[in-house]
Each structure stands twice: as structure tokens, then as C-alpha cells.
């Protein structure tokens, strides 16, 4: 590749354009979140007056009054529990698929692929009906169960790809060297498998954190409503004020930590997102 000055300039322009396009909605929502109620409709990209009013209003009144604290706890709790269970179940399945020879291996992979393509809206009605009968409607498990289902394919494909790369012979080598099977597993295999499981955990967490369809269909109150669903029901302080500022502030709170996290672990996430597609 020749590396002329002109090429370098074009390259830089392209990079800057991509970066700006990616960042605009983020910068915009951050900007909105710092605007005062008086300037929120000033249509300027950069706030003319900074204030933390929108953030304060989200947390005023404590857990019982605030429209945001309970949904935030729900979002965190539901996403973390989903991630935990999903990774355990997917690790079992992925270990079996990557390591063991048994009929039904390809059925399992094909099945997971089919679930990945399944339209969630098709299960919303039956789940709504079943959950009301079973008392799961508007509860944490009522959301965790469907999230588990729809995150498992992602977790299984990611983990299978990672587990296939692990040099499993090391386990035997450690045992030859005098380690007990458990030591061999804990000191050799676990450290090798941990990065893959961590990657899969990030992907599952983001999936559960992001969901909106189940969150608004299977909940009816702050008992289990997650942030994306709560945002859709935000109201202004009075009938005549728009909740724009509070939505923006809440959006920033649920977005910025995830972005930082994603950027910190970007190599792993890229590997995880593409692993299934390349091998599959």
C-alpha cells in the first residue's frame, strides 16, 4: 500500500466523519441532559446554561417517589441475574458441544441458531397470558426467563468458539505432573476459559439491558419495570412540561457506564460478536 500525503488526508477525513456520526446522538443526549428547563427548547447543540437540575429531579423523593431509582435497580438486578444464569447454562452446553462426542450436538447448535432468529413478539401474547396465570406477570423472574431464552444462543455460540480454542491437553499434562483433576481444572482450565466467559457475559448483559419489548409487555408497575420501559412512561412535572430533560438525564445514566465498559473491552466484544458467524 502506498502511503502518500493525499491518501493520508482523505483517510483522516473519513475517520473523523465516522467518529462524528457515531458520537452525535450520544453528545446530543448529554447536552440535553444538562440544559435548564428554560433553555431545553433553544435548539442549540451545546447547552447555553449548564445545570444538574435534570439529574437531581430523577433522584428527588427517594425510592418511593422517584420515577427512576426503582427501574434502575430492576434493570441492574434483572440483567445481572440473567447474565449469571445464562453463562452457567451456556457454559455447560458449550463445553459439551466443544469437547464431547454425542449425537445431537449439531441439533443443539442448529436449535440455538433457530432461537436466535425467533421473533420475540410471537411469544409476547402467550407469555402475557401464561405469566398472569402463573403469577409471574410484573415480577423479576417474568422478565429473566424470556431474557435467558433469547440470550442463550448468543452465549452458547460465543463460548463454543472460545472453548474450541482452549488447548485441553494441558489439563492432562497437569494431571501427569501430579495435579489432582480438580486442581488441573481450577488452575489450568478455568483461567483459560475465563476470558471467553467474561466476553459472553458482557454480550448477555448488554442484551438484557437493552430489551424493550418484553419490558413493556410483561410489566405493569415499578415492581419490575426496567429503565427502557420506564423511559417510555416518563411524564413531565406538570401536564404542560415535556419530560425531555429527565429522559435525557436518565438516558445518560444508563448509557455512559455501558459505553465506557464496551470501550474498555472492545477487542473481546468484537471477537465475541463475530465468533459465531465465522465458525457457524
Amino acid at each position, binding site marked *: 500500500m502506498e502511503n502518500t500525503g493525499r491518501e493520508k488526508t482523505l*483517510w*483522516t477525513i473519513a*475517520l473523523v466523519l*465516522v467518529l462524528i*456520526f*457515531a458520537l452525535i*446522538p450520544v453528545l*446530543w*443526549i448529554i447536552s*440535553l441532559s444538562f440544559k435548564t428547563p428554560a433553555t*431545553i*427548547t433553544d*435548539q442549540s447543540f451545546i447547552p447555553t446554561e449548564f445545570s444538574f437540575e435534570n439529574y437531581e429531579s430523577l433522584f428527588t423523593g427517594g425510592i418511593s417517589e422517584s420515577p427512576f431509582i426503582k427501574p434502575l435497580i430492576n434493570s441492574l438486578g434483572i440483567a445481572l441475574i440473567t447474565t449469571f444464569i445464562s453463562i452457567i*447454562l451456556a457454559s*455447560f*452446553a458449550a463445553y459439551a458441544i466443544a469437547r*464431547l*462426542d*454425542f*449425537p445431537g450436538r449439531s441439533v*443443539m447448535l442448529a436449535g*440455538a441458531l433457530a*432461537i*436466535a*432468529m*425467533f*421473533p*420475540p*413478539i*410471537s411469544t*409476547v401474547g*402467550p*407469555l402475557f397470558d*401464561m405469566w398472569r396465570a402463573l403469577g409471574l406477570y410484573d415480577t423479576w423472574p417474568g422478565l429473566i*426467563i424470556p431474557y*435467558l*431464552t433469547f440470550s*442463550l*444462543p448468543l452465549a452458547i455460540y460465543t463460548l463454543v468458539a472460545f472453548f474450541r480454542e482452549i488447548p485441553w491437553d494441558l489439563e492432562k499434562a497437569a494431571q501427569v505432573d501430579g495435579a489432582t483433576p480438580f486442581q488441573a481444572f481450577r488452575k489450568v482450565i478455568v483461567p483459560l476459559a475465563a476470558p471467553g466467559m467474561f466476553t459472553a457475559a458482557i454480550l448477555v448483559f*448488554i442484551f438484557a*439491558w*437493552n430489551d*424493550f*419489548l418484553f419490558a*413493556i*409487555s410483561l410489566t405493569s408497575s415499578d415492581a419490575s419495570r426496567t429503565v*427502557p420501559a420506564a423511559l*417510555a412512561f416518563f411524564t413531565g412535572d406538570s401536564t404542560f412540561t415535556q419530560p*425531555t430533560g429527565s*429522559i435525557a438525564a436518565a438516558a445518560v445514566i*444508563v*448509557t455512559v457506564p*455501558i459505553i465506557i*465498559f*464496551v*470501550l474498555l473491552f472492545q477487542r473481546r466484544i*468484537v471477537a465475541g*460478536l*463475530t465468533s459465531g458467524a465465522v465458525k*457457524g
Partner: protein
Amino acid sequence: MTDRARSERRLGWLLCAPAAVAMLAVTAYPIGYAFVLSLQRVDLRFPEEGGFVGFDNYSAVLSSELWWTDLFNTIFLSVISVSIELCLGMAIALVMHRAIFGRGVVRTSVLIPYGIVTVVAAFSWQFAFAPDTGFVNQLPLIADDKDWFGERFSAFSVIIMAEVWKTTPFMALLLLAGLTTIDDGLYSAAKVDGASAWQRFTRITLPLMKPAILVALLFRTLDAFRIFDTIFIMTGGAQDTQSVSILGYQQLISRLNLGLGSAVSVLIFLCVLVIAVIFVKGLGARQPESGRA
């Protein structure tokens, strides 16, 4: 040895069972239940009026103008946004692959949309285009009072933009993974033979990437077909911008008409099945053609 094989087989099934059960419990059983519901009159507002009605719900859905409008909207949005994503994603993948410098910058910026909650992105774009709060109407060449969400196709253009912004990264990453499998020697050889950059792209890159492109298209098309969050936040389905998923949601959850809603659910499931079969057929037919294992 057979004993060992048998125990390995049992262990394999045992380890897969929990995941398999968790996946089937919320897909296979509900879709079966949806089919049962769709054959009945089930309206939670009138619980006493139940009963088997055969395919009446289906004929009601299929003869309503709303279903066909929404199906058109969904297909229209899917085709347009996936096409844009494919072109843009390919460009970004090529940039990342050939990057002289700044590969990290592109990867970073590409992952930002991936990390953002779809609902948040939808709100951000909506506020950006809204005539009262948005900065977009302040930009040159755009009328100051343009009401983007007041008309069907301008609303569509904002919806498509938000979708493209959110999901192009995934497309780009999948395509990049496909790109890296192509042997660089092919390009040098073609260059020696005097092939232009465009010829190298159309004669080498595209044919060799056909499987990767089809896989990426399959995933994104099915994903686009389920579009719900962005439309729900931006227009709520007003100005004839509903998708089939919004229609299903409204019948099921807003109107509590489980019979009609389930018929819509089953029809959406069948659409997805048809799309998947078409793509898988395409994949199967094309793989031997590319001649690579």
C-alpha cells in the same frame, strides 16, 4: 470403549439439557400456545365470550387493510435500512481492514452505537429532529419548522437513520470477519495482472465474501423485520408508520385481544420462517460455488 462412549453421550445430553429446556420453554411452547389462542375468540375485556372460531382470526387479520399497510411498512423499512447498512458496513469493514492508521478509532466509534440502549438512541434522534427541541432544523438547507414526524415518509427517513446508526456496527464487524479470511496474495496477483481497485473488489472480494455477506444479511434482515423499539418511541405508530410487531403489541397488550393478536404473532412467525428459508437456501446453493472450505 463403548462404555466410555455411552457415558460421554450421557454427559453431553445432561450438560445440554438445561439450556435446551430454557430455550424451548419460552419459544416452542408459546408459539404452539399462540397457535391455539389464534383459533379462538379470546378477548380479555370480554372474558365470557370465548370459543373455537377456526381460522376466523386469520381471515380478519388478512382482510384488514392495517395488516397489509404494516407489512408493507416493515418490509420497506427492512429492505431500505439493510441495504444502506450493507453498503455502509462494507465501506467501514474495508476501511478497518485496509487501515493504514486509526483502525482503533474506527473500531471504537463503531462500538458506541452497539453499547447504547435502542430506546435511548431512538429518544436522542427523536429529540434531535423534533421541531421544538431539535438542532436538526437549525442546520442550513433544512426548513426551520419542518415537522419530521408529521408525515409518513419523513418519519420513515428518521426511523431508518436511527436503525442504520444503531446496527451498522454489527454488520461491519461481521463483514470484517469475512474480509480477514481472504488471502492477501490474491490481491497482489490481481494487481500484477493489472486489475483496478474496483475490479479487485468486484472480482475477488465480493465473490469470496458471498457466504459472509449472506450470513450478515440474514441476521440483519430478520432483526430489522422485528423492528419495534425505534418506531414505538418515535411515532408510536402514528402517520401510518406501524410495523407488524407494533400491530401485534397493540392487539395483545393494549387491546388485550389475545385471539387476534396471536393470529398476528403466528403470521409474523411464518414471515420470519419464509425469510430464513430463502436465505438458508441461498447460502446452501452458493457455498460450493465459492469453492472454499
